[in-house]
């Protein structure tokens, strides 16, 4: 299979993903909802994984080079992540969010057809390439969720205030709406519960981020002769690592300063965005080995 067949896969996937969280509104038992949601989401994962593998074979290289190719992986990982979190902690909204994000990535790929490029430059032909990128993609996806949780918490804790917060909450109301639409009542109004949820997510995301940086260092040593060169992308990955480190340390001590924690978590995401694509626009990015482009 290649990009020519992508639309068929994409439309099927979108239908499955929508079905997977729509069962929440069905008048059936919780258990049936859970089973149906799992079946639909797993079917999507299966057909998308099949597409990626056959694309990989077709290209003779892992499809991880262009932005369009990385979006394919998101479409697999986000629903998996949503499923794990949903099955483990019963966050239905998380499954809805993950699926909607996956759908968004699929739609971007549909509207921006990928140029089909078989070549992969020699430095990227390394056994470290796939784990390095995959672990990073996962950590970005997970940490973005922690940001949503933080935003949700912030809106809740300021929901009775006026002025700037009111404006902010209107701007962010879709997120608020999404999380609360798919939430059971008992987890809606408790900031501490929300932060506990955020902690679980941040720990997983942070572990992946750390692994991503370390795998990158090991690979860099193999390919470029130096494990750390202060390449702008490396520097921003380190910065992201540091801000989440601050959050984790804050959480370990002051359990009651919830609003501070929510703010730190919200701001941390800005660093993540900078590391993800913001770095390409910075003056320091001139000589980065990490500036990717969609075409050569």
């Amino acid at each position, binding site marked *: 299979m*290649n*990009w*020519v067949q992508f639309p068929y896969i994409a439309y099927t996937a979108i239908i499955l993903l929508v079905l997977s969280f729509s069962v929440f509104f069905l008048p059936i038992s919780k258990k049936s909802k859970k089973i149906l949601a799992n079946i639909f989401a797993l079917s999507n994962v299966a057909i998308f994984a099949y597409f990626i593998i056959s694309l990989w074979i077709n290209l003779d290289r892992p499809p991880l080079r262009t932005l369009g190719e990385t979006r394919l992986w998101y479409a697999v990982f986000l629903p998996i992540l949503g499923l794990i979190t949903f099955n483990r902690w019963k966050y239905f909204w998380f499954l809805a969010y993950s699926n909607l994000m996956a759908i968004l990535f699929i739609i971007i790929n549909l509207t921006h057809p*990928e*140029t*089909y*490029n*078989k*070549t*992969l*430059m*020699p*430095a990227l*032909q*390394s056994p470290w390439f796939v784990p390095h990128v995959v672990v990073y993609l996962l950590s970005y996806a997970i940490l973005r969720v922690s940001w949503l949780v933080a935003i949700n918490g912030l809106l809740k804790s300021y929901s009775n*205030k*006026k*002025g*700037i*917060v009111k404006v902010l909450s209107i701007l962010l109301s879709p997120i608020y709406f999404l999380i609360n639409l798919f939430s059971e009542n008992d987890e809606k109004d408790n900031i501490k519960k929300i932060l*506990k949820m955020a*902690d*679980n997510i*941040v*720990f*997983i995301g942070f*572990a992946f981020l*750390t*692994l991503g940086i*370390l795998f990158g260092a*090991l690979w860099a*040593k*193999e*390919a*470029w*002769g*130096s*494990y750390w060169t*202060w390449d*702008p992308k490396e*520097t921003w990955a*380190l*910065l992201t690592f*540091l801000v989440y*480190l*601050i959050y984790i*340390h*804050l*959480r*370990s*001590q*002051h*359990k009651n300063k919830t609003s501070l924690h929510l703010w730190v978590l919200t701001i941390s995401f800005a660093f993540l965005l*900078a590391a993800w694509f913001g*770095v390409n626009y*910075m*003056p*320091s990015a*001139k000589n980065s080995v990490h500036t990717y482009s969609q*075409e050569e």
Partner: protein
Amino acid sequence: MSFIVLYLQKKTVTQKKDKRRLFQFPWQYKEGFVISFILIILGLGFDFITKKPIHFPAFPTNLSLVITYTLLLIAIYKFEKNNKIVKWISGIPAAITATVLFTIVSAILGIVPQVEPGVILKDDILYDLGFKHLTTSWLIAFTYLFFVTSLGFATVKALIPFKKKKFGIFLSHLGLYIIFIAGIAGSSDAKRTYFYLENDAEPTNIVTDFYSPQKYETPFKLQLNKFDIIEYNPKIVLVNFSDNELITPNSSKHFIIKDSLSENFLDWTIKVEKFIKYSYPTDTSYSKFEETKSKGAIPAALVAIYDKQGNLINQEWITSGNFIFPRKNIAVNEKYYFAMLSPEPKEFSSDITAFLPDGTTENFILKVNKPKKLMGWDLYQTGYDERRGKWSSYSIIEAGYDPWLPAVFTGIFILIAGTFYLFWLGSRAIKEDDNNDNN
């Protein structure tokens, strides 16, 4: 606005509650931020006065410094655990303020473009303050000092007294500590140099520093037997005459040449009738190509263009050209033409013979991502004459020497282990920890 006022009101209330003066024990965040601020001022001041990069002392001073420093940390914690400053520096507020300082300083590094090592700028305020050579500035030296000290004490604290529950925390802190210590101390012993090996030249042991004209001698000599590139087949693209913009083909594919392959672009079909990967033209008008293995060979393809009705529009040989032969395209009409792009490298490699001091020789092939260890040096295939590509007459081999590498890698693997441990525990790892230290 009301939000800020509200925030300030809240702040005054909390300040009234906190009657403790600055630097009165027990220290908290305020002290950490004041210390950070002092370190920033000191760092900027030193950089501005000296106006040049600094380096960590080289071997053996660095080794003894690192050992002394680490032993000192352990000894101080062991015997002065209840000292109020030791309590503070090994606790969360110091960790957080040190990390905030490190974040701020690294952010400068992430935004301001850095000069190549060895370059010194005159009358440049950003350079004088250390911002353009941040990794060799006093500012980062002081930052590291605070960060590593806090990290070191936290590591010891997680170990003494030993608790199984704290083991993951200990591992991750220890891994990070080793990475930082070995990375900083080792930076002055590491050499990044390169061999410039020409075809058929005498064996050489001279390497040049990457960042300065300085030359070193390696204990072994290298000779290049053959440099080679395995190339992908070239791509064919449709191009606009007016602005030389590429037109994406209908099926959203990049068209890589294979024998007898056809592809639709806009209203035309291009068909490859014959493809020779390495060839010489037999005449100057490029009317025929013959296969060859000789130097300077180019890829060539006989292509035909058809319109929608299947009528032949044009048929010609095209080639990407190279440093000897000019490129040749095929016109579709006055608006568009098809061109062959230069082939992209899939793999490049050097066949090398090493002459060791004991009189023996060793043959090996260096490729990208396939380095070779030789007498403590790491050899990497790095570059070649890109203008000549496959027919480059020389190969550039990076030769790195970093005796601290095993230490850094130990730190990396310990941190990976610690990360897995924490991942397994999840947020339970921090639940009951550190609650009673401060406050």
